[in-house]
C-alpha cells in the first residue's frame, strides 16, 4: 500500500497530523506527526501535504543501520537509532521530521490512518 | 421512474429514509417537479431551502430525471 497525495484537494485542516501523532505517540500533538502541510499563502493559495515517498535514501545513509524496509515502508528501530540526524539531513524531500520530545526522527510507516480521516481526497490509500 | 432523495438535520425524520440512513427512494411521475414530489411526501416547502443535484444547486421547480440522487437542504446560514 502507498499513500497517494493530491495536493490540489488539501484544505490544510491537519486532521492527518492529529491522527498520526495519536496513532504513533498516543498524544494530541500534531507537531509529532510524520506528515506536515506546507501552506503557500497569500499567493498562490496552495496546501501541500508532505510525507515520506519511501525512496530509501535514509536507510542508505544511516551509520548504525537503524532503518530497514519492512513491507512497503522504511522503519526506524528506536533500539538502534542514536538520533544522530544524518537521515534528516540527507532526506531529499525534507520529510523526516524532528521533535524535541521524540526519541528518533519521525517518518511515515504507511499505517494509512491519515487516509482514513482525510475527507477531501488529498490523501488516499492505493495499491 | 425512481429518484433518490437524501437529507439530514430537521428534514431527516420527515423524509423517512428507507435506502440508507440518509436516503429515501421515491417513485414518481415523469415531469413532476420537486414542489409536487415534496408535497406528496408531506414535507413543508418552507423546510427546504433548495436541492442539490449532481453538484449543482437547483430550485424546487426542478423536474428530476430517472435515477437522480437529490440532496434537499434545510435552511441555515451565517458566517
Amino acid at each position, binding site marked *: 500500500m502507498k499513500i497517494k497525495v493530491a495536493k490540489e484537494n488539501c*484544505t490544510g*485542516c491537519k486532521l492527518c497530523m492529529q*491522527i498520526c501523532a495519536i496513532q504513533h505517540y498516543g498524544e494530541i500533538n500534531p507537531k509529532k506527526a510524520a506528515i506536515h502541510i506546507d501552506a503557500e499563502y497569500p499567493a498562490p*493559495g496552495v496546501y501541500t501535504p508532505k510525507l515520506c515517498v519511501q525512496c530509501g535514501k535514509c536507510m542508505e545513509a544511516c551509520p548504525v543501520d537503524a532503518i530497514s524496509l519492512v513491507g512497503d515502508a522504511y522503519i526506524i528501530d528506536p533500539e538502534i537509532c542514536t538520533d544522530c540526524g544524518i537521515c534528516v539531513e540527507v532526506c531529499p524531500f525534507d520529510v523526516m521530521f524532528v521533535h524535541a520530545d521524540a526519541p528518533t526522527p519521525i517518518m511515515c510507516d504507511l499505517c494509512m490512518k491519515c487516509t482514513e480521516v482525510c475527507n*477531501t481526497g488529498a490523501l488516499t490509500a492505493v495499491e | 421512474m425512481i429518484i433518490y432523495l437524501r*437529507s439530514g*438535520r430537521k428534514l431527516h425524520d420527515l423524509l423517512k429514509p428507507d435506502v440508507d440512513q*440518509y436516503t429515501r427512494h421515491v417513485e414518481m411521475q415523469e415531469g413532476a417537479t420537486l414542489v409536487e414530489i415534496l408535497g406528496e411526501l408531506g414535507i413543508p416547502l418552507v423546510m427546504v431551502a433548495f436541492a442539490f443535484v449532481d453538484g449543482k444547486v437547483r430550485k424546487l421547480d426542478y423536474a428530476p430525471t430517472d435515477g437522480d440522487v437529490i440532496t434537499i437542504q434545510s*435552511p441555515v*446560514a451565517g458566517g
Partner: protein
Amino acid sequence: MNGFGGTILRINMETGEIKRTPTPEKFAREWMGARGFVAKTVYDEVPRDADPLGPENILIMAPGVLTGTFAPAGSKIGFGCISPATNGHADSNMGGHLGAEMKYAGYDMVVFERISPEPVYLYIDDDTIELRSAGDYWGMGSLDLEKRMKDDLGEDFQIATIGPAGENGVVYSCITHDFGRQAGRCGVGAVMGSKKLKAIAIRGTKSIPVHDLPTLTKSTYDIIQRTKTHPLMEPWQKYGTALFVGWSNDHGCFPSRNFQTTYHEGWEGISGEKLAEEILVTHKACFGCWINCGKYSRARIPGKPDIYVEGPEYETIALCGGSCGMTNIHDVAYANYLCDNLGLDTMSGGNTIGFAMECYEKGIITKDDLEGHELRWGNIDDFENVLRMIADRRGIGEVLSHGTKGAAERLGRGTLAFAHQAKGMEFSGYDTRWYSAQLLSYCTSDIGAHHNRSWAITADIEIGQDTPEGKAAVVIYLQHIRPLFDTWCCCRLFWGEVDVTAEEHVDTIGYLTGWDVTFEECMKISEKIWNLTRSHYIERNGGPGRQFDVAPARQLEEKVPSGPAEGQRVGVENFEYMLDDYYYNRGWDKNGNPTREVLEILGLPHVADNLEKAGLLGEPFEDGVPKVRGQRLKPKAM
C-alpha cells in the same frame, strides 16, 4: 489539567512584566473557555467607568476546552474586552489555527493589561515569551503583515494581526489570522490597537494531556466516517456559507441597499455558485475540520491589482455586497480583501458603508465630505475611497469610524432610523421585517446585533412569520446553545449541518477532561454567562436594561417595499410584546433587569449584590421565576 494547556498569562503592556499562573481547574470547569473566560474576567477586572480604548480595559485571548484537541473542528479562539462599539461586554472568536497553537504552547488565556509605550508584538515560542518591537510593522495591512511575519519568524508560527483601522481605533476593527479568519465583531481589533499590540505570533510544540485518548479518538474517528457520507457535506464543502445567498433572497431576508429592501436585484451575480464558477482558488479549512467551508478566492478587476482573499462568505456577500448594492462577485471579493487588509470587520464595515451610501443618496453626505468622490450603490471605487477614509479616520471617515449608531448621532437628520444596529453593533446579513424572532435576537443580544448569538430565521418560519407569539422562549434557547460553541470552542457547523449532536460534543469534553459533564450543565453555564454579561452591560451603562434593547425604526415601522417579503414589518406593538415575553421567560423583570432569584440559581449572588447597589436589580417575581428558561423548538411538522 486534562484538556487544557495549563497556564494563564498576564502581560502588563506598560511595564512588560509577564506573569504565569496555573489555570485553576475550578475556573476551567465553571467557565469552559473563550467566551466564558472572557465574561468572568472582564466582569471581575475592568472598572465600570473604564474607557474601552484606555489603559484600564483589558484584552483577553483564550481558546476553549475543545480547541486543539481531536474534537470535531476544535479550532476556535476567543478575544474579549469591553467593546468600544457598544461599551459593553465583548467577545469575538475566530477559527484557523491560532487557538490550537496556543494550547500546544501550553496557554489557556492571555490577559493584556494597560498600554505599551511603543508598538510591540507578542512572541510566544513554547516557554519563551517576549514583547518585541513592532516599529517596522506598524501601519502595515493585516494580510501583508502576516506574510511578512511568516517570512521573518518561520512558516510554522501562527500569526494574528491588526490593520491600520485597529491602530487608529475604528470601533469595528477586527483581528485577522490565517489570511482571512477574523475575530471580527465588537471592535476587538481597536482594543488591541489601543494597547499598541500590532500582532501575536505563537509556536507551540507540546502535547495536550487527555483523560481518555482511546475513547476520544474512537468517538471522533466514528463521527468522521459517519459524516463523510452525510448528504449535506458536499454542498457545504463546495460552496460554504455563500450557498445561502439565493435562499435568503427567495425568503425576503437578504439586505439590499442598506436594508431598504430584502430582495436584492442581481443577487445571482454575487451568489455561492458565482463564487465557485468565477473566483474560487481552493477550499480552506480551519484546524481539525473536514467540512472546509472556507473558500479562498482570487478577484480580478480591471484597473486594480489582482487580489487573493478568503471568502467572501455569506455575511460579507450580504453586507459588503447586497447592502452596498453590489452585483459582481469580483467586486465583493475585492471589498472583502480591502476590509481584511485594512483590518475592518466586513460585517459592520459593509453595513456602515451601506448606511453611508444611503446618506449620500439622501444628500446627507456629499462629495465635499468624500474628498471629491461620490458614494454610489454598487460602485467599488467609491467603496474603496470611503473605506480608506474610515480606516484613516479622515474627514467623513472619522464620523463613520464610530459605526452606524455613532455616525447617526453625529450626522443627525433622522439617520438613526436607518442605522441597522443594536447597542451600537451592526446587524448581521439578515433583514428581520418578516422575521420577528431574529429582530428580538439582535436587540436582546449582549454584544449587539450578531446572528451567532441567536440565528432564529428558521424558527420564525417554523413558528409562523406573522406572529410574535412563541418567539421569545425559542430565542432564549438559541441564545444559550449557539454561543455555547464559542465557549467550548468548536465550530457549530457540525451540530447545525451534519447531525453531530450537542450531546456528542459534551461527551468529547468528558473524554478529554475526565469531568462527568452533562449537556444540561453546559446550558446552565451558557445561561450564567448570558446573565453575567447582561448585568455587566446594565451596570456599565446605567439602567434599566429595557432602554438598551432597541430596534431600528426601519425594521419596526417601514414596510418592505419589494420582493417576497413585500409589505412586511414587525411593528412596535409586536416588538414590545416579544420583549415582555422575553424578559418574563428569562426571569428578568419588565424593565429587562435580571432578578436576584435567577442570578442566585446561576451561582451569581455577587452580581445580584452589585446590581442592587446600583439600583438596577430586577423586581422579584411573585410566583418565582420560570423553572425552565428558554425552550427548544419542536417543529410543528415533526
